């Protein structure tokens, strides 16, 4: 299963349109989740509208597969653009939203957008903020030993970097002679729920926290998928081949507020999607009509998905005690 070489996709015209398609896939999926919330088909929504321009390129650039030859993903609850870009089905996200037994990520146990996909090395998304930064060095150590180009990618928000685990991640990734291939991503939306980050953190560029560890880092406009693509590709190239950590901060928007707890209303922040669409049209890569067709297609997919999900069974008493312990063979 070793894959010592890997060529990432190139950003050609087809890819640019694919990015748009996936951004719309992500946006429409989450807008459907919000609708489900409003219509009583779910209890709680949290997701990533406004982070597609960063999340989608990230998903496309992942070296996808199982085991240490491939990338591990330690994601947070705003990673649906990444996971959908990797190829997951919108209907599965709706299943988790509704908490059906068919939810492949948690069987209706966890909140929406808390993925767990073993064939793609996506480890369970935890509701505990920032703990993933302390876990990522573990998979990265296995990758360092394995050789090849697999890296561990960890994502989180800006406020969460205040937890000590962010620093644990950096520290364990920089032991002298034992540096680890971890790509630390920070999606900076300027908020932690209702708290403006600027009131509790002295730098907007939290990537600079890496300076004190000697970790290379950069901050980008996360609302531009082209900028994001290049930055991610460059960062990954460094981490894959230098086998050292890197911190990538993407400044993004939070279009529907924090979660359904704050209403999930549209906020007045820059929306990466119309911005990108204007560019695609300007660069003659697409037309308004073609772009609209993308939306329509995904709306149809999601409409059908919801109809299907509504018919699916819900967990009952017999499922509560399943999977407390794994009873198969040891090892993964």
């Amino acid at each position, binding site marked *: 299963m070793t894959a010592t070489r890997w060529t990432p996709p190139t950003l050609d015209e087809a890819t640019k349109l694919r990015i748009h398609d996936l951004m719309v896939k992500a946006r429409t999926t989450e807008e459907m989740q919000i609708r489900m919330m409003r219509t009583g088909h779910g209890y709680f929504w949290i997701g990533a509208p406004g982070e597609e321009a960063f999340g989608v390129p990230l998903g496309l650039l992942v070296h996808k597969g199982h085991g240490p030859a491939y990338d591990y993903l330690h994601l947070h609850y705003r990673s649906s653009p990444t996971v959908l870009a990797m190829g997951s089905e919108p209907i599965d996200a709706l299943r988790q939203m509704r908490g059906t037994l068919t939810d492949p990520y948690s069987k209706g146990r966890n909140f929406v957008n808390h993925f767990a996909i073993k064939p793609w090395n996506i480890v369970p998304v935890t509701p505990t903020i920032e703990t993933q930064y302390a876990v990522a060095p573990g998979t990265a150590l296995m990758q360092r030993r394995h050789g090849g180009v697999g890296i561990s990618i960890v994502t989180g928000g800006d406020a969460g970097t205040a937890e000590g685990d962010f620093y644990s991640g950096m520290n364990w990734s920089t032991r002298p002679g034992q540096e680890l291939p971890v790509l630390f991503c920070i999606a900076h939306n300027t908020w*932690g729920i*209702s*708290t403006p980050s600027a009131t*509790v953190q002295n730098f907007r560029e939290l990537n600079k926290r890496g300076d004190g560890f000697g970790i290379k880092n950069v901050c980008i406009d996360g609302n531009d998928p082209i900028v994001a693509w290049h930055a991610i590709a460059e960062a990954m190239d460094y981490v894959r081949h230098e086998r050292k950590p890197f911190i990538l901060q993407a400044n993004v928007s939070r279009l529907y507020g924090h979660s359904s707890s704050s209403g999930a209303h549209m906020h007045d922040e820059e929306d990466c999607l119309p911005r990108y669409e204007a560019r695609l049209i300007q660069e003659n890569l697409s037309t308004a009509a073609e772009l609209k067709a993308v939306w329509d297609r995904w709306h149809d997919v999601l409409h059908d998905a919801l109809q299907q999900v509504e018919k699916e069974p819900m967990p009952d*008493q017999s499922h509560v005690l399943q999977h407390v312990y794994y009873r198969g063979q040891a090892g993964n």
Partner: protein
Amino acid sequence: MANMAQAIRLALHYGEEHLGVTDIFGEDVGAPLGGVFTCTQGLKTAWNTPLDERGLIGMALGIAYGGGKPVAEIQFCDYIFNCIDLLKLCGNAHWSSAGEYHVPLVVMTPVGAGIHGSMYHSHSFESMATHIQGWTVVMPSNAKDAYGLMLSAIADPNPVLFMAPKGLMRAKGEELIPGEPADERALHHAIDAPVGDRTGWAPHWPPVEDYRVPFGKARLARQGSAVTVVSYGRALTMCTHVADDLTKQGLSVEVIDLRTLYPFDEQAVFASVKKTGRLLVVNEDTEVTNFGEHVMRKVVDHCFYDLLAPPRLLAGLDVPGVGLAWGYEKHSIPQPDGIAAAIRELAAQQP
């Protein structure tokens, strides 16, 4: 009548004005949100912290060392589990320094299930909390007790853990808090922050008065003779409903609301068990090494020969979490039907 969130807010306000509270802080505790459950809206010493529970408890301890009176909130008790060592330090500062220091601080945190909170908004914390020394641990089941316990917590010169059931935050009280306006809408307009823009908004505090619920004193929630039910928090409210139903059906159930979990009111519990001979303890926490087992042990120690049936615990199932879908929560957290069945079984057992 004030709901529990309002009652806590009123208590914190009283604490700021009369009991020396210097800082009320936590994630989203300050403006504009005033806490995810609105408990800290409009309070003059409330402020927002970095997202860092360890820093939060450290800050509380430091403020207490520095002569302040902090009330620190952990947004959900589900997120307190990275701080147990720091809670232990708060609890041992007085003992380890042999009386040189003491740390007057309050940590408040919402607990329990009942809000479709899935794995990480449904946690209970009383079992671990009562195992930490040097703290007083309380949990109200109604708004007035929340007010009175919070005042006692603030006034206490030692660390106090104030746990408020998530599922009861919006539950209205049945009794007025001393000084609370009789008109619920008037209270709402006076102290609830408006929806939307809150800049410029300020609360108009009613003249709430000093009212303390003493630590270590249970409340007799229902008087009865056949079975003693000991509970607290949200489970308590289920127990009283069930008791009322059963009483109507001719089964007389006594319900004790502990209010203080550590130190719990042994005398009240023992007296009741000596009377009924039958004990059911109900809570939401998972059942292995559960605080209810401590209550049972004490009862067995002191009332063994009065027991007419084996005392029972009805608690959360021993699973790694409360699942999102209702089927999970229903079958892992005690519900009224299960409580009623347990009481009936206890009553039916003959020695």
